[in-house]
């Protein structure tokens, strides 16, 4: 299985194309089988991944445009490994929990195409291949939101597309400039990220290139003030669209920062710590307040996503291994928890066709199992100890404490405000008297829903109690990256700021 990465990337594509032949009635089962095979393949990758090595593994290399240095170059390290596994897992569970009835075949095929692009983004080590999957991922998402979404779906889907597309074209100019500089220095064209790591830019170049990449990634994350597309996209998207958007697509932005911005422009990254920290804290506090003001359950979770992405951004720019490893762990945990929350909102929406909290009340007595799962996910989202949400958030805050205690305390309020809006949501919907008579007839989770939630609950608790199997490989790769950055940094401030020695394990 030396081509495991290519299989992981292109299997969903081929299966998706074959899916056109499958009969409408059987399309859902087909999709679930393919997603399950893909998930098993990614587990196989994890099992065979050498967790003690920080290096990039399973490398595949094939020239595409030789004269121009564009190669099909993929590989996996501790940073990308779990994002891939999370992607395949969430696709599988999203597919299992999917309740869409109309045009189901198109939906299954679209999700499989989307899965290809998502896995491709995390595995690509060539900037153009990365860009290729990055842009291609917009198309299936556009279709999912636009075809199965709510009343404003067309507006939401186009807004989503244009926002991200414009940002990434600026990023493309940045990539072309890096490639040009590489050509100028070495005389060869190369778009391989690992080649680019070796380039040392002076501060001015670093700053502008950092900005070019920042525009592309920040819109995707989405960072304040570029976040306005996200509530629309979430508000209008069908459940499966929201699940994948929140769980995976947003992570592409933060992954981009770790993969490109930090190792390529260490000095500029250190220079930008303060502005980014301030934006992140605005994201954390401001969007949390906005979340509290929402009446629509889904919007609460959409804004809470932005708030949590703020924590992730903060951790990435802590420039030490706790912060970055914590961030990557938080990416996984947010992927699973927010995905699960969107699925839970989908469950109630399917039954009542409303997401407005005031229509509910006392759901806990009618749907106890549902309330239990919702409660667990909610606690994980808030960051209760012994859930998956705690580990990442705690590491990020520890990491950033070394940079700035004051900002960390501000960021720490996220746990408090998060608890406020989440518990308010829970109180309004699940406790109190049953305000709406019709709700009394609601059915609790059925077996299909239980099957899709059990693995997520298990992961939330397992990784909350014992995160080591995931954290160790991440930490190895992050350490390697940090020591590389420290060596590469040219300004003394950057050399001081980047901490490569202490490990996350010691901190625990």
């Amino acid at each position, binding site marked *: 299985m030396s081509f495991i990465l290519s299989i992981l990337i292109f299997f969903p594509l081929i299966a998706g194309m074959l899916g056109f032949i499958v009969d409408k009635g059987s399309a859902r089962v087909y999709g679930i089988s393919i997603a399950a095979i893909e998930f098993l393949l990614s587990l196989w990758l994890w099992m065979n991944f050498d967790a003690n090595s920080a290096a990039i593994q399973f490398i595949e290399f094939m020239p*595409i445009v030789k004269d121009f240095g564009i190669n099909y170059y993929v590989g996996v390290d501790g940073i990308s490994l779990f994002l891939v596994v999370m992607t395949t897992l969430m696709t599988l569970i999203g597919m299992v929990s999917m309740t869409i009835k109309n045009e189901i075949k198109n939906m299954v095929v679209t999700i499989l195409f989307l899965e290809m692009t998502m896995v491709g983004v995390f595995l690509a080590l060539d900037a*153009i291949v990365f860009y*290729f999957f990055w842009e291609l991922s917009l198309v299936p998402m556009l279709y999912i939101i636009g075809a199965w979404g709510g009343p404003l779906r*067309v507006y939401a889907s*186009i807004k989503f597309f244009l926002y991200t597309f414009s940002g990434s074209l600026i990023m*493309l*100019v940045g990539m072309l*400039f890096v490639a*040009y500089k590489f050509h100028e220095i070495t005389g060869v064209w190369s778009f391989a990220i690992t080649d680019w790591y070796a380039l040392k830019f002076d501060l001015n170049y670093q700053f502008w290139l950092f900005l070019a990449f920042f525009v592309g990634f920040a819109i995707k994350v989405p960072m304040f003030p570029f976040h306005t597309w996200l509530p629309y996209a979430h508000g209008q998207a069908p459940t499966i669209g929201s699940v994948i958007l929140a769980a995976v697509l947003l992570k592409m932005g933060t992954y981009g920062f770790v993969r490109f911005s930090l190792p390529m422009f260490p000095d500029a990254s250190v220079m930008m710590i303060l502005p980014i920290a301030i934006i992140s804290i605005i994201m954390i506090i401001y969007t949390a307040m906005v979340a509290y003001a929402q009446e629509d359950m889904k919007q609460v979770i959409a804004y809470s996503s932005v708030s949590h992405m703020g924590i992730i951004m903060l951790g990435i720019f802590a420039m030490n291994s706790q912060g970055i490893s914590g961030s990557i762990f938080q990416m996984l945990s947010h992927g699973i928890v927010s995905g699960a929350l969107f699925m839970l909102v989908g469950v109630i929406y399917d039954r009542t066709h409303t997401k407005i909290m005031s229509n509910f009340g006392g759901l806990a007595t009618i749907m106890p199992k549902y309330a239990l799962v919702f409660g667990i996910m909610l606690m994980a989202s808030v960051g209760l100890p012994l859930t998956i949400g705690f580990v990442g958030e705690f590491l990020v805050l520890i990491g950033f404490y070394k940079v700035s205690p004051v900002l960390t305390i501000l960021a720490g309020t996220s746990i408090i405000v998060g608890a406020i809006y989440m518990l308010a949501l829970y109180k309004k919907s699940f406790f109190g008297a049953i305000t709406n008579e019709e709700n009394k007839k609601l059915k609790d989770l059925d077996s299909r829903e239980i099957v899709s939630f059990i693995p997520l609950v298990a992961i939330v608790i397992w990784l909350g109690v014992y995160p080591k199997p995931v954290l160790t490989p991440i930490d190895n790769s992050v350490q390697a990256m940090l020591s590389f950055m420290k060596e590469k940094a040219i300004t003394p401030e950057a050399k001081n700021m980047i901490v490569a020695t202490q490990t996350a394990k010691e901190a625990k």
Partner: protein
Amino acid sequence: MVTPIQVTVQELNLPLLAPMLIAIAGGLGILVIDLFKSNLDKSLYVMLSMIILFADLLAVAGITPNRGFFDLMLVDGVSIVSQFLVIVASMLFIPLALTSKRFHEFSYPEFFALFLFMVAGFQFMVSTDNLILIFVGIETASLALYTLIAMHNRSNSFEAAIKYFTMGALAAGFYAMGSAVIYATTGSIELWQIKEALSISSSTGSMVLAVTGGAVLLLVAFAFKLSLFPFHTWAPDVYEGASAPLAGYMSIVPKVAAFAVALRIFNIYIDLGVESVRTIILVLAVVTMTLANMMALVQEDVKRMLAYSSISHAGFVMAALALGTTKGNAGVFIYYALFMFTNLGAFTMLWISRHKKLMYSDRYDHPYEKFAGLIKIMPMGAVVMALFMLSLAGVPPFSVFWGKLFIMSAAVDAGYIKLAIIMGLNSAIAAYYYLKLVVYMFLKEPVFNTDTIYYNISKPLMVIVGIALVATVTSVFFFDVLLTYIYALVSASGF
């Protein structure tokens, strides 16, 4: 007493002329056949034209770059590349005559004869560095093209032909004036001699105005031909009036030929460091791509939208010309080689859906509403059209993306970062109107209650769409070859 000139056949280097001669002889042959037996079916003429074009292609492939024919002809790498593009696009165009519905113009053999003369005209245009022969080539091709448009036999086709003709005549005037100024300042009409003369004289103060003035007049002429702002106003109406395949053809072939000539002429100025010319070209290019994009946003008809989008693409490519680097110059042809398949494919899809009468709107053949909900009516057609639109928008891995990537990279290499950013933002704006069609096809409910909008479909048309689609989708695999080949030819010609 004039001394007689001794010329051997060898020196004439006739193989250089062979491609054009094949096209002209073929056109005459078609006319002769009509003399003997009239009322022959269009399929005969289509196949004859295909064979002639194929022979033409082989003749071009057999050429080794050289000068010839009293030094009038200059067949270098640029010429060969553009001839290839012209002929391949023509071969994609001609089978589109084989529609299932009968359209007036294709029943005349004159259509095919004129078409072949036009191809020969374009080939002459790109195979010389003599300003007069360029002019002859331009006019041969243009006059044939005006007639081809008018033959579509609709009131707005006549309007289009007349509009194009008057604008073309104006451009020809500017071209003649520009050439005259250049002749006055340099004493030559051969571009290589002009370059030598300019390199000596352009630095002297008094010459600057004359040199720039000549360049500006020529630039105006080419801006008409390339439909650059503010000389683009004819384009949308002409595209609308012409039949869809001819509109698609016009967005590729005349522009490739005009770009080849523009490259020969303006590269002189850019090489000599006449910054004013470079600045004018850059400004024209940026304004063209931006304004055409804005205009395309508000169109209600898909064909007019594609017309504006072609203008915008031409502006994009024009910017590459201003860079003055081999990469930029090669980018012009690489871009068109990739753009050709996608754009012709998109116009062919319109052609397939063409009805003889105006069915869907009082004014337009192809309003957006016509394609509403196409995914429910004709899923394959919707998917194919969507792929063309995504390619035009520059979504990887489809063909136009590689062209955009290459030209943006050329701009970055030449130090024009801001230009590259403007190109990027323009691509983002353009994405909106391409997506608009995709949205109509995939996300809206059908407006008209029909079970097909593909009245005009036939096997040959499907084959052409298939070729265009395969080239668009698999460009990632042949971009490497294309790049190496075109780059080598363009750099060997000294650009």
